[in-house]
């Protein structure tokens, strides 16, 4: 009888330690899942039809071949009555990464697309009700861009610097409405409808 009670006690203890391990595992999994949402780098980009300057953050994943950025841009006041703020969601793809030295690497192709939206009431996502149905089919607020470019990355000393690496990139892009203008017009040259931009990426994680 005593032996039987002892046996049960041990089993219970084993069960509870197993429970604890399972619980810890679950918590770790839960934390690591949320940790994936922590932005891994910051980016700053000049021009590119999404603002004079755009600042943002993002995530790199799948062996660093993919990057997704969220950027906020500023369009200063030129002809308009006021300056404007834009937001960009950008998807990048880097098929190759070529190490040039211990610290320097080169990505010969960066490509992808971005969607830019204007925060301004003078621009609409869908035409306002005052127009006859189908009068203007396009959105003035949301633009879709495609781009291609290149990138250099310099590894930084992690003991000295808060950042793991710094990258310099440049891109050529164009947007939906520019391309529609190009259709049927030989006189429009790439320099007319292409947009050059460049920027820096600072890798934190």
């Amino acid at each position, binding site marked *: 009888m005593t032996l039987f009670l002892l046996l049960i006690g041990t089993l219970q203890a084993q069960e509870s330690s197993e429970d604890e391990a399972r619980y810890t595992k679950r918590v770790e999994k839960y934390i690591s899942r949320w940790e994936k949402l922590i932005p891994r780098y910051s980016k700053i980009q000049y*021009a*590119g*039809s*999404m*603002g*004079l300057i755009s600042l943002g953050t993002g995530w790199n994943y799948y062996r660093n071949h993919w990057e997704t950025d969220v950027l906020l*841009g500023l*369009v*200063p*006041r*030129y*002809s*308009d*009555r006021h300056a*404007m703020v*834009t937001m960009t969601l950008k998807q990048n793809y880097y098929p190759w990464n070529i190490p040039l030295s211990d610290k*320097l690497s080169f990505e010969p192709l960066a490509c992808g697309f971005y969607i*830019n939206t*204007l925060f301004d009431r*003078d*621009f609409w996502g869908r035409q306002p009700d*005052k*127009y*006859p149905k189908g*009068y*203007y089919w*396009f959105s*003035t607020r949301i*633009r879709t861009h495609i781009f291609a470019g290149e990138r*250099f990355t*310099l590894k930084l000393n992690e003991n000295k610097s808060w950042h793991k690496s710094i990258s*310099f990139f*440049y891109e*050529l892009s164009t*947007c939906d*409405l*520019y391309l*529609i*203008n190009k*259709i*049927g*017009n*030989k*006189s*429009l040259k790439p*320099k*007319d*409808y*292409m*947009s*050059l*931009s*460049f920027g820096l990426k600072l890798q934190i994680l």
Partner: protein
Amino acid sequence: MFKQALPLCLCILLSACDLIDYHPYDGRLTISERNINEQNIPLIEAATKDKDTIRFVLMGDTQRSYDETNDFVKHINRKKDSIDFIIHGGDYTEFGMKKEYEWAVDILSKLDIPYVGLIGNHDIIGNGDQVYEKLFGNENFSFIARDVKFVCLNTNAIEYDYSHPVPDFGFLKEELEDSTRQYSRTVVAMHARPGSDQFDNNIKDVFQLYIRQFPSLMFCLNAHNHQLQMDDLFDDGIIYYGCSNIAKRNYILFTLTPDSYTYEVIDF
């Protein structure tokens, strides 16, 4: 080495200014043209002052037709001695984007004959109206060629709310009451004519009554409908002449004689 090359790279890239674009609607003009109407009106008035016969071209709706507009400019420049000025009936752009304005104005600036430009409904989209104001000037304007006053109006009412008067009767009143400039005949030009989807059709009859107050209203001009039109819209003898879009490769040439006028549709 990389750190040394970086500033150099930046300099090269910055100098590639043509390719720098902040936003399709940034309104940052990279061409030097400003106040085109204000600059060209004195040229038109001086060139026609001592002439008996005035010849001018009505064309318009050049949006997304840069090649055809180029051909039009070359065609007109070949016969520049027989034409005094050109009226562009509006719609330089399809989407109201700054670059579209610049592409169009770049081509039109190659004209050897002075031109004036009206505002079209597409030119107002986004912040296009503000770009128009910088490039062309006021949306309502007038000029006098010999003895004929050309009253040019923004009639794209649906693009605005009621805080912005379209057509602007205040402007029309000022023009009617202005006695500082001598003229004996009038032509009214607009992008969208009465009855069109853009016009404030609630007031179209009042509009017609009002513009008929001008001294000897001869006829009206419009663009917008992308087809040739010659219609007595109000059965009052005032013909509205509408030009087709430039993609159809034609325009209307008007000849004003001291007591009459003729017109001709010319293909190019």
